[in-house]
């Protein structure tokens, strides 16, 4: 038959848009099963996203702490005011000191009495004076330099004790490291779970359509044509779940914000929970979608080969 004219074909993009719509439509045809799958994938994506936010907030919180790290110099009792002023001026002249604030013993008492509940305690300390304190704000950030500065300050004549929040900061840093490691490990596991769920769901889809695939192969469908609907199903699974995961994460952030604010207030901090920014949102959506697509491709390609005829 020589008159096999070339019929008008749809373009590449048109074909794909058509298929994407069709796959989405087919997801709605089996709502309950697909909703369950989507819910499982969403939760599996929400968990690493939340862990990531925990890590991010912890490091922001830790940063805020170290930025305000101060060295307190406790001075020998009954040191004359003039002597302290001279010392203050001297310290302010140092290159590694940014600012020095003087808190007299009187002022220290006043500050303390402003905190609720401490008034009564203070009345017990009637004849006991608080030591005068010089609050030194260093202009350094590295722990070793800070250490050097503290030893230098320790050797000053009227100083009895030097205190830094260092120990506490170090512990916070270590906790942060553990949390980050845990978050990464759990995140990888959860993403692996997403991969397996999508792959397995599509494996069942392929097996359920075995007869149809056989017929399609017999009438000349290419593998990529046969796989396309499944790839788009994986694409939608990943994409929709990523969007749901984003919403869930945002909901968790909003719900927890009140509690965290309260906690921060107890620590005298202005800290607020930070949600996902634009970049992270895009990253989450892309990870979800690509993961769904990759899982679909690997799983369906493998199972397509098992269906005869080749």
């Amino acid at each position: 038959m020589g008159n096999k004219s070339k019929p008008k074909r749809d373009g590449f993009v048109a074909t794909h848009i058509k298929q994407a719509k069709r796959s989405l439509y087919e997801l709605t045809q089996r709502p309950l099963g697909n909703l369950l799958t989507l819910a499982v994938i969403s939760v599996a994506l929400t968990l690493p996203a939340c862990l990531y936010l925990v890590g991010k907030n912890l490091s922001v919180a830790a940063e805020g702490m170290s930025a305000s790290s101060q060295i307190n110099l406790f001075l020998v009792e009954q040191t004359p005011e003039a002597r302290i002023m001279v010392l203050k001026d001297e310290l302010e002249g140092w290159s590694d000191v940014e600012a020095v604030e003087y808190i007299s013993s009187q002022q220290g008492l006043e500050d303390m009495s402003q905190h609720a509940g401490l008034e009564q305690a203070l009345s017990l300390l009637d004849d006991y004076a608080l030591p005068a304190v010089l609050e030194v704000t260093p202009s350094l950030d590295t722990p070793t330099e800070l250490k050097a500065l503290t030893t230098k300050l320790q050797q000053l004549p009227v100083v009895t004790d030097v205190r830094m929040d260092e120990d506490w900061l170090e512990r916070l840093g270590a906790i942060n490291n553990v949390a980050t490691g845990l978050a990464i490990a759990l995140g990888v596991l959860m993403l692996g779970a997403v991969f397996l769920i999508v792959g397995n769901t599509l494996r069942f889809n392929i097996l359920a359509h075995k007869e149809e695939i056989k017929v399609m192969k017999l009438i000349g469908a290419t593998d990529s044509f046969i796989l396309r609907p499944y790839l788009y199903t994986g694409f939608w699974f990943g994409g929709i779940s990523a969007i749901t995961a984003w919403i869930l994460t945002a909901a968790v952030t909003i719900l927890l914000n009140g509690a965290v604010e309260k906690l921060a207030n107890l620590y005298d901090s202005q800290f607020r929970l930070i949600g996902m920014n634009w970049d992270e949102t895009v990253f989450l959506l892309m990870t979800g979608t690509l993961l769904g697509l990759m899982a679909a491709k690997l799983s369906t390609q493998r199972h397509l080969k098992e269906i005869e005829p080749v």
Partner: protein
Amino acid sequence: MINFQQVSKAYRGGRQALQKVDFHLRRGEMAFLGGHSGAGKSTLLKLICAIERPTDGKISFNGHDITRIRSRDIPYLRRNIGIVFQEHCLLMDRTVYDNVALPMRIESVSENEIKRRVCAALDKTDLLDKARCLPNQLSGGEQQRVGIARAVVNRPTLLLADEPTGNLDQDLSNRVLSLFDEFNRAGVSVLFATHDVDLMNTRPQYRRLELNQGFLSEVASYGE
């Protein structure tokens, strides 16, 4: 059109399905492929559309050697061949229209063109009023005609029919065969496998190839 040169096919386990088969089906020619079940008719058809590979010999289609065709070229070979199966192989969850449209959807033909061609094919097979039905709402004869409509919708150069009348009575068989007559008159080469000798006898004008235990022979037609 199709050229077999000394083609043999042995299945795993050593069963010899075809032995040194030689034949040539010319462009626009129609031929019966006879022989009782198990004689190798299905194997021969499977070799043409590359479902099976020959163990020996050479097969060419339209001048192309398809003996060792690469897997990724197979779909394009099959798009030139319309296949009608004994058991229809229709998709039961799709309408008659969608079933017939399938070969064109595979080639990403635009929907307007699909509509035109599918309607033409359904009209030819007398199924236009059944377009919205599901296959299992149709009778056996009608289902077979859907299979034929699907096979011809994208105007293949060759039609292969594997016992398309196997489940039909005399009258329906004759009607189905008439359809193939028509397509052949339009220039399509047809290879029609059947074990029904009476049916073959109604069309003495066509060549008759006979398979017996894997050996192929040409039977002289009554018409000559």
